[in-house]
């Protein structure tokens, strides 16, 4: 059984008990435990079921590479699935549940899959669920959905807070082991500003467990000393519980800081995503131990040798009473020696190397441990827990020589440097035959903005394993990084480290070497996705020769652990099956993040009310208080209409329109874009921007204008007012203000840079209120003594007046066909003016109207709306707006394009009015059909609806549309089929439905 030892545990505080619950059962751990170490201390070896076959699975590792111990963590609004027990720090009150089983961990219905294992090979889903086609929707998909996924999806809104933080550094060191600390020290001593990230809560990494000496003292003393030196250096930032999640172009890196995962009641954000820009990045990310592939290597109790050592040394936990060791290298002997020295039983060390190990083997032998060279595991006995192993010769086919009782198997297949962060942004890898691993090709580093390498690997992550070499490599990396960041390397030399020298490993990818199909079907590569040696071999046989294809076919390395312990073994098996060397097979692409990070941390503050910026006018609060039903217009929220008690939206719109047409109403038009163009060349410039002539507009007058892009298509419209000789104020659509301002600046800066024109976007300087309706003048006259008569301020004129003591600019423009004044005042006075106008209009039953009323009234008048009549493919000529296209001007944006053959095609659909015969409202976007079918067997069409409304003024449906030869077909009736069947017939009419002569607006 696994248990807590009486002594040991450098990271735990034995005096502090911490209680937690697993699958509803209460357990005790110690402060400093991870959830995994606490579970093991409570003899909970089995922690879940595998994904496909639902086989019992136990803890395998002690760090981020753990594939099995994934839990549903927390409850309610703090719930999160797939949390790794090995990287979860224990806290009082932690609750977690195991995943992927039903009804419970010990007894699981899905485990029946394991008996079907031989019928569920790689690619099973692809092969099985193809036919019959109809089965997919009703049989296969529901079944797969039921059993797909590991943890449960959270049901409640996340209760926690997340944020981003931007940091800048000369040198970013990722990894806080001895290499990272030494690299940081060297870089800092060279004068660089340094930031060091360590993903766990503790510094020093593996070295503190593996031992060795630095400058004659134990390695943990070196860690303490270096750490305190770095802490005192104001140029150095040390952050623990922060993982280097990704390395991106130009020295950009993401740091994933977990602030309150270990103390959920603490205030502040749970995770902080650091967006770091570094001149140089040192990846001191260490290495990950590889498992060995033998039959039954997934039985709970089979673990990485280094993990067993970690649990013993760091947490004082013995994973079992009798630990058999199986290895192809010397490092695993350290586990044997550690366990033996703690008084635990190590019945055998199976060293697959015929020649055996080096000095560490001698040390183990001296402790009385039995060592069998050239031997391997034929199979592991036990289902929910290791009960023993059968031994065979590595060189053979698995004939059992002997059975040995044990409750833990410590395996080691060698080490793979963590090259992920090196590779994220394009760092290349080399295959190292000596250590049977990929390591960074330091001559092919990822390159930054200046084309120079910006990532330097250090220590074990660079494929250097001996402590002395690790320290000197890291020292050199730190100095190189500082130098590349513009500092000069310090003269300090690297400390000297010593550890026991190791004999070379033997590349062992399958155990035993001649394992037959039966054994290979029980030899796991990817524990989380249930991929076995036999699956990869099958993929190779079926032609998936590319590693990227084989990965997707078998799902090897596609689980939440992204194959940290399985990829290299899988590659080796694939290479073997393809009969080619491993480097020729290559690796799959390493992509960020290194381990999963919370989606919420990516969102940062952008959730709830901060999800996106909403733009609000100064009158917004009034709208909100008065029943506004808002609609988004760009980032603005504009009232669509104002609903009174019990009123439907339609009824509100009708009431608002009738109120406007019969008396007077207000519209908050503040969102309309307002751009000033000033300078001696402003007229010439606007002549280029608009299709109309603007340079001959008289000061004090307004003119409606159209703006096209260079491609000829209509992109914006609005009224231009000439303020003085040099100065124009251009109104744009609500959504267009920023774009049009950018568009103007683009042409001024990049094409006509010697033209003397300055622009300024003053959209938000003004609150703009339209006072509209036959009584508009009467309302205004109550608030001003200035002359606003038709003579003093005629239609399409504007003037400055004093309104309620505030100076205002008043434009006589109308988008409704009514007598209309658009009043602009500084935004700070906008709300007050709105209130005054409502008071002044009370005797006329003044109303307010929203965007729908605005739309309906403009449609009644046949005015176009950008975005309704236009969609980026419509030119002004299509809209019969020839009157707004200057023929005198030699040039304007869009002029050349509008003479292209397709643009002058007489068959382009043109704008007309549409009047339904039965008075009903045409559906928006409806198409008018023509005779016959096109080449695709679809009904031919001859037009489409661009705007359609119920007109309260005319008490019938009205519409505008683009119709083939429309203007020549007045009076003709065309058919608009409805989605639900049936046809609406509409007559082609003039698009101006109301007050054709403009008598109402021009008074």
């Amino acid at each position: 059984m696994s248990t807590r030892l009486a002594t040991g545990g450098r990271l735990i505080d034995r005096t502090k008990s911490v209680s937690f619950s697993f699958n509803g059962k209460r357990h005790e751990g110690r402060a400093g435990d991870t959830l995994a170490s606490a579970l093991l201390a409570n003899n909970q070896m089995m922690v879940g079921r595998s994904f496909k076959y639902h086989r019992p699975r136990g803890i395998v590792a002690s760090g981020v590479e753990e594939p099995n111990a994934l839990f549903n963590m927390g409850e309610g609004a703090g719930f999160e699935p797939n949390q790794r027990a090995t990287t979860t720090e224990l806290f009082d009150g932690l609750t977690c549940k195991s995943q992927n089983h039903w009804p419970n961990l010990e007894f699981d219905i899905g485990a029946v899959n394991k008996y079907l294992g031989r019928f569920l090979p790689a690619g099973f889903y692809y092969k099985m669920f193809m036919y019959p086609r109809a089965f997919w929707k009703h049989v296969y998909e529901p079944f797969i959905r039921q059993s797909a996924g590991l943890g449960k999806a959270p049901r409640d809104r996340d209760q926690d807070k997340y944020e981003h933080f931007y940091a800048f550094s000369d040198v970013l060191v990722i990894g806080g082991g001895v290499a990272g600390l030494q690299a940081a020290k060297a870089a800092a001593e060279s004068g660089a500003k340094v930031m060091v990230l360590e993903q766990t809560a503790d510094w020093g990494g593996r070295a503190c467990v593996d031992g060795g000496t630095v400058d004659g003292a134990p390695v943990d003393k070196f860690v303490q000393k270096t750490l305190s030196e770095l802490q005192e250096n104001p140029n150095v930032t040390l952050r623990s519980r922060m993982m280097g999640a990704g390395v991106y172009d130009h020295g950009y890196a993401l740091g994933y800081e977990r602030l309150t995962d270990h103390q959920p009641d603490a205030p502040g954000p749970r995770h902080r995503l650091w967006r770091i820009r570094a001149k140089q990045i040192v990846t001191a990310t260490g290495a990950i131990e590889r498992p060995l592939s033998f039959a039954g290597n997934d039985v709970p109790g089979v673990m990485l040798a280094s993990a067993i050592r970690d649990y013993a040394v760091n947490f004082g936990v013995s994973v079992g009473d009798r630990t058999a060791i199986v290895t192809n290298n010397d490092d695993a002997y350290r586990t044997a020696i550690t366990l033996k020295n703690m008084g635990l039983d190590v019945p055998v060390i199976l060293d697959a190397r015929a020649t055996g190990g080096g000095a560490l083997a001698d040390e183990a032998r001296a402790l009385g441990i039995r060592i069998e060279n050239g031997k391997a595991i034929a199979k592991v006995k036990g289902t929910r827990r290791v009960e023993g192993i059968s031994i065979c010769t590595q060189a053979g086919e698995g004939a059992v020589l002997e059975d040995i009782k044990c409750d833990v198997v410590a395996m080691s297949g060698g080490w793979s440097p963590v090259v992920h962060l090196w590779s994220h942004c394009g760092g290349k890898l080399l295959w190292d035959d000596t250590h049977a691993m990929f390591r960074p090709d330091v001559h092919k580093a990822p390159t930054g903005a200046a084309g120079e390498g910006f990532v330097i690997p250090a220590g074990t992550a660079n494929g250097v394993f001996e402590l002395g070499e690790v320290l000197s490599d890291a020292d050199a990396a730190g100095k190189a990084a500082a130098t590349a960041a513009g500092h000069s390397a310090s003269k300090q030399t690297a400390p000297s480290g010593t550890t026991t020298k190791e004999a070379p490993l033997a590349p062992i990818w399958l155990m035993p070497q001649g394992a037959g199909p039966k054994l290979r079907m029980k030899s796991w590569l990817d524990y989380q996705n249930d991929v076995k040696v036999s699956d990869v071999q099958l993929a190779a046989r079926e032609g998936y020769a590319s590693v990227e294809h084989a990965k997707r076919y078998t799902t090897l390395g596609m689980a939440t652990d992204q194959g940290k312990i399985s990829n290299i073994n899988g590659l080796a098996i694939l290479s073997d099956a393809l009969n080619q060397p491993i480097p020729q097979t290559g690796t799959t692409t390493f992509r960020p993040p290194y381990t999963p990070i919370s989606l919420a941390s990516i969102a940062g503050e952008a959730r709830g009310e901060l999800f996106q910026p909403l733009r609000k006018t100064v009158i917004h609060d009034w709208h909100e208080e008065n029943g506004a039903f808002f609609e988004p217009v760009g980032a603005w929220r504009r009232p669509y209409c104002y609903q009174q008690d019990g009123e439907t939206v339609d009824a509100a719109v009708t009431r608002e329109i009738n109120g406007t047409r019969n008396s007077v109403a207000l519209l908050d038009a503040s969102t309309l874009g307002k751009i000033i163009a000033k300078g001696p060349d402003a007229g010439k410039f606007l002549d280029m921007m608009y299709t109309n002539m603007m340079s001959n507009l008289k000061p004090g007058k307004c003119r409606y204008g159209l703006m096209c892009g260079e491609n000829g298509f209509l992109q914006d419209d609005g009224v231009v007012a000439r303020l003085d000789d040099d100065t124009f104020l251009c109104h744009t659509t609500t959504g267009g203000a920023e774009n049009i301002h950018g568009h103007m600046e683009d042409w001024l800066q990049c094409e006509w840079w010697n033209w003397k024109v300055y622009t300024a976007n003053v959209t938000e300087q003004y609150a703009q209120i339209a006072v509209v309706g036959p009584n508009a003048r009467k309302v205004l006259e109550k608030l001003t003594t200035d002359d606003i008569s038709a003579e003093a301020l005629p239609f399409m004129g504007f003037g400055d007046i004093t309104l309620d003591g505030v100076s205002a600019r008043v434009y006589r423009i109308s988008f409704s066909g009514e007598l209309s004044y658009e009043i602009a005042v500084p935004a700070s006075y906008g709300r007050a003016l709105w209130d005054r106008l409502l008071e002044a209009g009370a005797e006329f039953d003044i109303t307010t109207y929203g965007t729908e009323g605005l739309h309906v009234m403009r449609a009644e008048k046949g005015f176009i709306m950008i975005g309704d009549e236009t969609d980026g493919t419509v030119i002004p000529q299509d809209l019969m707006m020839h009157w707004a296209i200057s023929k005198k001007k030699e040039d304007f944006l869009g002029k050349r394009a509008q003479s292209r053959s397709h643009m002058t095609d007489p068959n382009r659909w043109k704008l007309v009015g549409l009047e339904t015969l039965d008075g009903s409202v045409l559906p928006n976007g409806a198409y008018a059909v023509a005779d016959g079918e096109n080449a695709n067997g679809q009904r031919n069409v001859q037009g489409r609806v661009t705007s359609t409304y119920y007109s309260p003024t005319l008490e019938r449906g009205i519409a505008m549309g683009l119709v083939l030869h429309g203007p020549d077909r007045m009076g003709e009736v065309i058919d608009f089929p409805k989605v639900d069947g049936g046809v609406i017939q509409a007559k082609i009419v003039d698009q101006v439905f109301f007050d054709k002569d403009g008598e109402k607006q021009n008074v």
Partner: protein
Amino acid sequence: MSEPVAPLNGAKYEGFVTVQAMGLQGMITLRGDLSSTKVGKAVKAATGQPVPAQRKAAVDGDTGVAWMSPDELLLFVPYAEIDARLDALHKALTGEHFLAVNVSDARAMFHLEGNGAREVIAKLCPVDMSPDAFGPSDFRRSRMAQIPAAFWMPTDVSVQIVCFRSVAEYAFNLLKDAAEPGGQVGYLA
């Protein structure tokens, strides 16, 4: 006669940094040839300050000037004096090619006060806020979460931020969120 109302009407939040929506501030966008003597004199007359160097600002209370782009300045003047100063500017620059417009009401302004002010900005803007990279007299236009913003530091522990008025509420909520107690980063303060 109505009284002008400032964005968010003086809203205030006390976090690990104090966030204050400021009152009305007169602001003028001035575009022109920044190297011209005439412009220099006009700016000096309007703000008491010379034309600032690239990305610099000199603001004393409610009066000063900030460098916006190679041909644009933002002048700060008392709100009540905006019309007078704008008129004076127009007179002084007669004959120059320039643009001067009142943008006082188009902007919202916030003040951060406290040791963590730099960190609040660093949570929202992709700008190096360490003291060796940014300090009093520097002026920066950038992105604050999802909106454009400009800021400067009146002192080493305070930041003044200018953004568009329509997003004042969003900006205030951003700053509030970033300044919540417990959110100290311990990196820049």
